[in-house]
């Protein structure tokens, strides 16, 4: 198995507040890893450190075995151009979609290919339509995002990230801002991606998704990995008190089986 993402002793501080307290994570090609944890546990921050939306305070990130950043005189420095290059390899989808409202769906998906990858209009257009087709929205190519439902917007955002041909996809609570009835279509798209072999790291509160799709579940608590394992084991048979409390909070008002 090829290791695509690895973090070593990753720390992140915001001023006095230490959000990540030394995370060691390894994700292999084709794996789907789900990060669980209560808010403030550091799961989103961990995700954002992997593609350097946030710069880690200390520790290293390796993408495909290559260390990110150069060490000079004991200090890690990051070259902005290298980070931009890295982000084309590590795609990210956000809770609030962040589509560009002044561009059509097609233009949204083409934008990064044109400005960053310098693909020709023709090639970018064809790839974009292929990715839109993959998320089932090829017929919306000419629409503006404001005309789409939340679920459709999020699938466009997924297509936009996929169009860069990333090796890894990061999903940051991508269903949290959606109406409940629109959550399913986005999760279905994600499951399909996982089945196609995409390597994915997902922060989510959808325990069902974690149970059915993830290869591995990590439970973060207070900036550290508290419990991890395959979803059947972690979700059905949690080993720690904290994890049990977290799961109970989630299933308090579940419909009876």
């Amino acid at each position, binding site marked *: 198995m090829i290791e695509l993402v690895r973090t070593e002793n990753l720390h992140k501080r915001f001023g006095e507040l230490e959000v990540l307290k030394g995370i060691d994570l390894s994700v292999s090609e084709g794996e789907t890893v789900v990060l669980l944890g209560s808010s403030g546990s550091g799961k989103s921050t961990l995700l954002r450190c992997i593609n350097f939306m946030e710069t880690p305070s200390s520790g290293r990130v390796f993408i495909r075995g290559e260390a990110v950043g150069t060490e000079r005189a004991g200090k890690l420095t990051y070259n*902005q*151009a290298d980070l931009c290059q890295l*982000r084309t390899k590590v795609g990210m989808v*956000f809770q609030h979609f962040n589509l560009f*409202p002044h561009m059509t769906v097609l233009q949204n998906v083409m*934008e990064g290919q044109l*400005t960053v990858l310098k693909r020709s209009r023709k090639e970018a257009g064809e790839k974009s339509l292929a990715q839109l087709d993959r998320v089932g929205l090829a017929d919306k190519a000419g629409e503006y995002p*404001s005309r789409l439902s939340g679920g459709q917007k999020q699938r466009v955002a997924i297509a936009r990230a996929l169009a860069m041909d990333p090796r890894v996809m990061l999903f940051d609570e991508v269903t949290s801002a959606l109406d409940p009835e629109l959550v399913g279509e986005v999760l279905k798209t994600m499951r399909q991606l996982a089945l196609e072999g995409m390597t994915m790291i997902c922060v989510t509160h959808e325990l069902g998704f974690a149970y059915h799709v993830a290869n591995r579940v990590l439970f973060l608590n207070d900036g550290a990995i508290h419990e991890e394992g395959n979803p059947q084991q972690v979700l059905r048979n949690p080993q720690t008190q904290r994890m049990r409390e977290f799961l109970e909070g989630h299933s308090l008002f579940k419909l009876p089986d």
Partner: protein
Amino acid sequence: MEWDFTAAFSNIDLLLLGLLNTLKVTGLALCLGIPLGLVLALTRLTHLRPLSLLAAFIIEFFRTTPPLVQLFWFFFAFPILFDINMTAFTAAIVTFSIQSSAFFAEIFRSGIQSIDHGQWEGAKAIGMTRQQSLKRVILPQAVKRMIPAFMERSIELLKTTTLVSTIAYTDLMYQANDLAQKTFRPLEVYSVVALIYFMLIFSVSQLSILIERRLARSGEGTVH
């Protein structure tokens, strides 16, 4: 007293020449002031604190001092300090470019800051640099929101340029003063000049209303 517009109308060519010069100063000051304003705004928004503070100081200085003082300073003091010659026209262009750029900078800054932070994140996540994000994602949205303020400021500038008559540049106001004195018909001359300014600025403001309506109709498409 009797109104007699003969003097004013028979010298209308002089007034129109003045109008042309007024438009020249306004147009050039806009052409230089808008890009300069963008540069000031971006400098103000950098994370390099000394640069940002310098830009903030320039902006505040030119927004808070009277334009007439600035004009006199550039016309009388600046040439002595730096030992260069400056015509009234050059002094006017320099003053009003910088003065209006300070106001444009604030329009640019508030426009850029009004764009949701998620837009920067969305662009960054697909590998775009800060400059690419600004040019392709942020500014196209921000400029649209800025247009009404831009128009407002341009009209303000057009009115402020009347000050150049005080350093003997032959704009519309200067021509009016000149004509009023020569013909002993200040009432009629200034009435005609007021009308010219009114027609000019009224049509510009009508145009801006038209543009605003047009933008409102095309819809802004919210972020979420």
